[in-house]
Each structure stands twice: as structure tokens, then as C-alpha cells.
């Protein structure tokens, strides 16, 4: 089986979600003054995100840099305190857990970090790093812990002698395996992978993604998988949430998001993914978003995307986008969109027409002032999603 297979037609899972966030907000205060600090504002990194993650599924979370996806993950894992809203893990409200209760909860939710060079303590051997969580949670100690560390090292495919080695002796991909082993050490149910493969070479990305998929099957893990690379997320996710400026703008089963994106932002993201067929690729219309992401300290009124929205321009700048904040509306089973005009994109023909028109307009602009036209931060993957499974997968 492949992760793509489950992603293909995943129905909306039923039952109690393993993780639920309810209007989660994480704001960072902006202060002035040295001795007497005054609050003069807040960076609204995560601003009212409600998501469910069901047991055994992978929820992908995509968006440009700075849209709050990492902050969201850190808040969920309780590495950052939520400003408002609730985090419910397996029926328990964990939003304000402290001390021992929090430590017990940490056994059940773990995190994989983005930069494999920064996430391992350079002064600790892989073995002592893996034994540490076991000791902290009094799962095992001494010989037993060493044995378990050895097991973990083998599970993630590191060489047997890795436990006596220091992180600097390993390559990026191997370090990331060590990071995964650390997350697995306490046998968690939920793992937040924060850009777990973004820092790796493409060939290594495939290995790590396959490893994550294997581990998910073996240990019945639930993932929150964060990335800015759509093709990576698509590959592993059952459902995908698209974030923009601290809010979820679209939530949909993974396949549907690609075939029928309903939010103009998602359309732009999907259009940026290259297609591994030169014939199709040359005809591919790329939607180029203009300008930078607005500051989360002072988000635009109404729909936060309206300052860069191509659909709004095509529709003649309707006032509603500026005055009214769109709610996440159910457009299809399990497919929510936060756009007042999502209906415009629902029909395939109408969507193609609009996209073509917008692409033409943005092309025209590109020749006018090339340096103003910034492509989205979504990096086009050098390789196609289908290729992730080839080669490496064959070895399993």
C-alpha cells in the first residue's frame, strides 16, 4: 500500500477525533519600553483555527512561510501557550495542563522538527538522547533503556552502532531519522511533523516520507504533517488544511483539494506545482500571487486574502471581501472553504475560464514590472509526487 492510495478516496472519518482544536489563537505581544513594558499590539500568528485530527489519519497543513502553521503545531504540542481557544486531546482539555499532568500528556504527543542540524543536541550521543525520554517518563532505565534505544535506532533504519555516535557524525537524512526515533521513543499516538522533510535533499525526502508512512502503519500513528511543499503533503496526507495568515482557508480530502480547489489561494498554490509531463507542463497556467503576505500584526479586514486575491480582481473587486469575514463553509462533504465566492470556482469550466483570464492578466503584469511579481513562497518541487514512491518503495 502507499500513502497515496489512502489519500485517494479517504472519506470523512467519523467518531471522536484524537485531537481537536477549537478556535485556537496564539498571539505574540508586541511591547514597547525597556523597564515598564507596554503592550502596543500583537502578532496574530494563529487566529482562530478549528481543526480535527482523527485517529490514524494524516492531516496535512500547508501555507506560505509565516502563515502560522509551525506556531499552530507548537501550540498543539503545548510548547507554546495558547492565547485563546481550546486544545482537546483524546477527550481531555489539555490547553492549560501544567506540571506532571502535562508531562504525562507529552508521552502521547510528540514532534519532529524541521532542521535536523538544529534539533539534535550536539553534546549527546544518539543513544543517550533516545534513552532520556524513557528515563523521564520512567518507562525504562539502564540496560533496558539501552536495549530500547537500540531497537529504535533499527526501526528508523540507522546503523546499529549509531547509539554510541554524536549527531555531527551523521548526514541530514540520518539525523532526521534520529529525530524521528526520539519522537517514537515514548510510543506516542500523535506526532506533529513540522516541515520534517523540507530541509532535506529530494531523494532523502522520499526516504523519510516513506519511513513516516511505514511507521504510521506499524504503530497506528496520527500525524499532523506540516509543509510548504504541496506535492510532499499530498503524498502523505488523507486530508489537507490550507492556512493563510493564521486562518484555515480550505480544508478538504487530499485528492479533492488538487482536483477541485475551491479557494482562490489554494488554486494559486496548486497551480504552482509542476506537472511531470512536459506536454502538460508547457501548457500549465501558473497563477502568480502578487506582493507579500500582509503582516499578521495588522491583518487586512474582511477576508484576509483580499489584498492578493486574483478571483476578487476577476470579479471586479466586490466590496464584500473587504467588509465581511468569510466563514469556513461546507461546499461538499468534508470540504470546507472560507471564501464568499467559492461557488464561482465549483464548476470545472468556469474555473478554467477564470484561471486562464487571471493568468493572462498576471502575465501581462509580469512584463510590465517584472520585479514586483513575486511567485508564491511555495517552492516548486524538483520532482513529481509519483516519483516519491518509485525506487525507494520497491525495497520495502
Amino acid at each position, binding site marked *: 500500500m502507499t500513502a497515496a492510495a489512502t489519500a485517494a478516496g479517504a472519506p470523512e472519518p467519523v467518531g471522536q477525533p484524537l485531537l481537536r482544536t477549537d478556535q485556537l489563537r496564539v498571539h505574540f505581544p508586541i511591547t514597547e519600553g525597556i523597564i515598564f513594558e507596554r503592550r502596543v499590539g500583537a502578532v496574530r500568528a494563529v487566529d482562530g483555527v478549528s481543526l480535527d485530527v482523527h485517529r490514524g489519519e494524516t492531516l496535512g497543513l500547508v501555507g506560505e512561510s509565516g502563515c502560522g502553521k509551525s506556531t499552530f503545531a507548537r501550540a498543539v504540542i503545548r510548547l507554546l501557550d495558547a492565547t485563546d481557544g481550546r486544545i482537546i486531546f483524546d477527550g481531555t482539555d489539555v490547553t492549560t495542563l501544567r506540571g506532571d499532568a502535562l508531562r504525562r500528556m*507529552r*508521552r502521547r504527543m510528540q514532534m519532529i*522538527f524541521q532542521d535536523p542540524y538544529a534539533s539534535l543536541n550536539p553534546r549527546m550521543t544518539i543513544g543517550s538522547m533516545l534513552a532520556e525520554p524513557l528515563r523521564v517518563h520512567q518507562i525504562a532505565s539502564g540496560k533496558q533503556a539501552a536495549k530500547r534505544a537500540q531497537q529504535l535506532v533499527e526501526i528508523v533504519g540507522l546503523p546499529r552502532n549509531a547509539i554510541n*555516535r554524536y549527531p555531527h557524525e551523521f548526514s541530514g537524512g*540520518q539525523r532526521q531519522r534520529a529525530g524521528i526515533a526520539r519522537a517514537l521513543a515514548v510510543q506516542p499516538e500523535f506526532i506533529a511533523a513540522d516541515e520534517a522533510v523540507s530541509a532535506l535533499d529530494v531523494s532523502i525526502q522520499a526516504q523519510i516520507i516513506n519511513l513516516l508512512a511505514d511507521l504510521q502503519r506499524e504503530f497506528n500513528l496520527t500525524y499532523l504533517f506540516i509543509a510548504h511543499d504541496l506535492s510532499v503533503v499530498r503524498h502523505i496526507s488523507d486530508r489537507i488544511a490550507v492556512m493563510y495568515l493564521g486562518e484555515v482557508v480550505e480544508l478538504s480530502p487530499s485528492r479533492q483539494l488538487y482536483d477541485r480547489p475551491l479557494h482562490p489561494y489554494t488554486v494559486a498554490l496548486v497551480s504552482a506545482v509542476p506537472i511531470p509531463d512536459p506536454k502538460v507542463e508547457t501548457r500549465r497556467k501558473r497563477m502568480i500571487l502578487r506582493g507579500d503576505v500582509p503582516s499578521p500584526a495588522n491583518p487586512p479586514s474582511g477576508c484576509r486574502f483580499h489584498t492578493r486575491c486574483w478571483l476578487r480582481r476577476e470579479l471586479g473587486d466586490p466590496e464584500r471581501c473587504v467588509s465581511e469575514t468569510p466563514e469556513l463553509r461546507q461546499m461538499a462533504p468534508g470540504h470546507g472553504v472560507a471564501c464568499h465566492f467559492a461557488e464561482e470556482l465549483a464548476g470545472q469550466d468556469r474555473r478554467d475560464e477564470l484561471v486562464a483570464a487571471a493568468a493572462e492578466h498576471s502575465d501581462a503584469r509580469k512584463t510590465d514590472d517584472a520585479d514586483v511579481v513575486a511567485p508564491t513562497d511555495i517552492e516548486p518541487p524538483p520532482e513529481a509526487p509519483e516519483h516519491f514512491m518509485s525506487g525507494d518503495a520497491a525495497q520495502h
Partner: protein
Amino acid sequence: MTQATGTLAATYEDRPIGLWTDALRRMRRSPAAIIGVTIVGLFVLMAIFAPFLAPFEPTRGTLADSYLPPSPEHWFGTNIQGQDVLSRIIFGARLTLGIAVLSVVIGVAVGGLLGALAGYFRGWVDSVIMRGVDIMLAIPGLLFAIAVVTYLGRGFVQIAVAIAILNVPIFARLLRASLLSLSEADYVIAARSVGVAGPTLLIRHMLPNAVSPLIVQGTLALATAVVDAAALGFLGLGPPDPGTPEWGTMLSDTYRYLNNAVYLAFFPGIAIVISVLGFNLLGDGMREALDPKLRR
């Protein structure tokens, strides 16, 4: 996947390479560091084996022998009391290096503790300690040391304490800054997410990664301490017994006779310069060897 890791495993030696071993290896490739180690090593050996190396007793001399220029018998000449300058420089290394090491040890211990407290507890503890540090840094160093020696009285330990006090704010700031940046490091956050908390986090994850700048700064502080000790000696705040060989004191004894006996000032001056140079080269070499950016 298993195939790949199998071949990778084969490329490793069996002995794990620790960070310190790695740093040492890189230091051995740096000529500056080697020169530094050699100079410092020679001075240390000189201090340890002073009684065997010195041709004469440093405190004995007859007035008949005063102001002898350098000769095969007295390589560096003799001073006004007829004491052998070479022997005094060799014995002087004991005092100077002793003061330098003791002052840095005290400085690192006290400054490190303050820095760790500030960096760990943050909040008002941090504010209080750091404002204190700011005040200390605002006072000119040597003046402060003179005041401290005047207050505590002259003597080996007093001089070391005075110089240590100058070092305390530097080390406190350094460690605090390291800890603050480390507290945002991914691996510290990772340790927190695994459930490691409080003092364990500080001792196991943060301090071991904060020591290398402290070691580098400590080595460089040794050089400054040598100069400071000599300056105090030169200003007449050296050891209470004027007969005790000390490089700074030796300099101040001789500057009046510079016109006809340059060598008297020259040799203690050279001793100070070379030892300071040695510590500086060593410190720079260690900075390069321990810099994580040069690894990978």
C-alpha cells in the same frame, strides 16, 4: 533503505568521535593554535620547574653585582640589588601565571553562576543581575582593580580577586547570552517536548552547549589578567614584599635606569608580551576549533 544504511555504516570507524576530540583535531591543524600552545606550555613548565631552571636564587644578590649587563654568567643581566634578572623572570612566571589562572577561575565561577541564574530564571532575577553587571562594566577596569587591592590589601589572592571582579561581568553576560539563545534552540525545545524539565534541561542540554564560548573567553581573559597583574605590580600594588619576583614590579623598578640599562626593562617586558601573545593565539585557535559554524 536497509541497503543504504548498511553501506553507510561501513564507512564509519568504530570509535565514536566526540565533539572535543573533533575540536582537538582541528586545533592541531591550526599553526597559530600550535604556537599558542607551545608558548603557554613553555611558560607553564617554566613556572613549575622554576627552582631547577633558574641559575641563581631570585632574591639573593650582592650590591657589588648591581647593573651587570647581559653576559654568559647573567644572561639577562642583573638589577640594582645585583639579583639575576633571568632567575627573577623564571620565578616571576609562577606568580603571574598563578594570579592569571586563579583570577579567571574565580571570574568564570562567579560570573558563570550569575549568568546561569539570569539566563535560567529570566524575569526580575535577570534584570537585577544584569543591571548590576552594567554598573560594574561602567567602572574603568584598572581603576576598579586598584580600588579593590587598596581595600583588600596587597597580596597574591587579593590581586587575583581584584582581577577576577573585572572578569565577572564579562562571563556573566556571555553565559546569559548563550543560554538565552539556546533556550530557543530546536534541540532544547525538543528536549522539553519529550518531557525534560527544569534543572535537568539546564544541566544536560543547555550548559554543555554554552561552555565553548566561555572556554575561549577564559583563555583570552588569561592574557588580559597577565597584563592587569603586571599593571598592578607596576603601579606598586604587587606582592607586599618588594623582593618577590613579579614581572610588573620588575618593570617599575627599572624605568628610572632606562638610559643606561635598557635590558632591565626589556626582558620582563618581553616576558609579558610573549605570554600574552601565547594566550591570545591559544584563545583564537580554540575559538576556531570550537566554532560550530566551521563544523559540518
